[in-house]
């Protein structure tokens, strides 16, 4: 599914002394099957933006088209349908677990979709497997006796069980340890390639964004600063720093190395790519 954001503006508490313009005339198109990263400092408008994509917030002006259809011009019943297609995983989604068992919690979405018991069961099994957990070992456990990383996965599985075509994740790795981070990212990546769903990833980790996405949306004070490939975005070091962001450590390294090796490429943002480029330049 493609998502087209057209001249989207959102003002909180409009007309009151607390009026705050969180989004200002945003227009971008997220292509079907693409993997988009969103970066911006706290308060830049990232969360406000993604909450428009499945109609949780209504724009002050402008609109969002999902597969060509204006989601704010549809009937309420259609909007509910849309939320099944555009799955949103909030920050710290484990805070939203509530059922007695993992199986019931993950099955809550599909149950509300009105699916049959068999279908629900199948989806629950599949999505628990997709997030790298053992269905039989975990299905009867209370979500609250799991570790932080497991809870996070169960919460993500709950959204996957609705089989969304667009998956939006707001900092899915915050607070996880390095291995947990890597595993969740790898699962999101394989979900994207295998199921060809559109993924939108909000993250503060430039390293993760650099590794994962096709295109980065940089947002500052409610406005689009860049919407381009990581190669292009991460070479804009001074602009990024001026809006409270950074580039991956290796990107800084490449810039420093350029003084001695003028031919070295600067559009490098993973350790793997840095290794190749350094070897190439040094070995000549």
């Amino acid at each position, binding site marked *: 599914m493609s998502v087209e954001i057209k001249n989207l503006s959102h003002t909180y508490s409009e007309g009151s002394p607390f009026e705050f313009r969180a989004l200002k005339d945003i227009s971008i198109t997220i292509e079907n099957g693409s993997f988009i990263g969103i970066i911006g400092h706290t308060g830049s408008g990232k969360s406000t933006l993604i909450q428009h994509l499945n109609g949780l917030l209504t724009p002050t002006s402008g609109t969002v088209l999902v597969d060509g259809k204006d989601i704010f011009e549809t009937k309420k019943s259609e909007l509910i349908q849309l939320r099944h297609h555009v799955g949103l995983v909030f920050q710290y989604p484990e805070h939203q677990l509530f059922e007695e068992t993992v199986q019931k919690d993950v099955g809550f979405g599909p149950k509300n979709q009105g699916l049959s018991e068999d279908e629900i069961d199948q989806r629950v099994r599949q999505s628990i497997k997709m997030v790298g957990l053992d269905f039989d070992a975990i299905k009867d456990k209370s979500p609250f006796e799991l570790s932080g990383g497991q809870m996070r996965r169960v919460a993500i599985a709950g959204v996957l069980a609705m089989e969304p075509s667009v998956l939006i994740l707001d900092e899915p790795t915050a607070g996880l340890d390095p291995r947990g981070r890597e595993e969740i990212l790898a699962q999101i990546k394989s979900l994207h390639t295998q199921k060809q769903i559109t993924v939108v990833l909000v993250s503060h980790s430039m390293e993760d964004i650099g590794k994962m996405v096709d295109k980065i949306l940089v947002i500052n004070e409610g406005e689009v600063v860049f919407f381009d490939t990581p190669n292009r975005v991460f070479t804009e070091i001074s602009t990024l720093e001026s809006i409270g962001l950074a580039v991956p450590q290796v990107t800084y390294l490449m810039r420093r190395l350029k*003084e001695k090796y003028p031919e070295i490429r600067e559009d490098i943002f993973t*350790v793997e790519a840095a290794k190749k480029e350094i070897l190439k330049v040094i070995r000549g």
Partner: protein
Amino acid sequence: MTMDVKNKMIDVRDVYFSYPHHNENEAVHALNGVSLHIEKGEFVGIIGHNGSGKSTLSKLLNAIIFPSQGDVIVSGLNTKDHQNLWTIRQTAGMVFQNPDNQLVATIVEEDVAFGPENLGVPPLEIRERVDRALAVVEMQAYAHQKPHQLSGGQKQRIAIAGILAMEPECIIFDEPTAMLDPSGRREVMETIKRLNRDKAMTVIHITHFMEEIVDADRVIVLDKGKVVMEGQPRTIFKQVKRLKEIGLDVPQMTELAYELRGEGLKIPDDVLSIEEMVNALCQ
């Protein structure tokens, strides 16, 4: 009193801790015989994967929980002795992950005053302590603001000021940057390092971000409730393979050095920073 005891901020002696479970066989053994000590004025980083026992350890140091076996001594006081509780919590302050859970008042300076007020500090002295604490975290300009209008990094600095106003000897930071954006993370790390360097504050910093502790005096690695490695950041991080085996990471520059050495490049194996990598590659 020997010199040794005098300089000891924290002494953890063969500590075990289990979280109870309704089924006794499933009780979680969070710490399995941990011994460590922290000197006054030290900056110690603690790393370990989720569930390794880091947070349990930090709660033991602050006397929020108590060892099932063994002793935790903070500034010469045993946490087991309930009379010591308040002194210990005042001696070892804690800063947590989520800034929103730590701020209680509606005005920044009132929030910072909350701790000393509870300690019964006289009003005039509270005023002085609050001003001093806000100056240390460089937030004086925000004294009359509402905490919820601040950024994540600023909120954490207020939380730190709130601890400083209680005049602790040591601060335990339990993943204070986990929820922050890059600039917030930088602000908080600069504040922590400055406290240690300029104010000689003993700092225990628990984190998943390896870059944050490359300047620490010492790094302690926990795994399955035990101390498995301990030493200077340089000697710890160069053990790339071992750290990866226990689910941890190394700073990006150390990893790159490790990879390049694997390709036969002659560079040191204990590179930690961009500066050192530039030097190694530009000789």
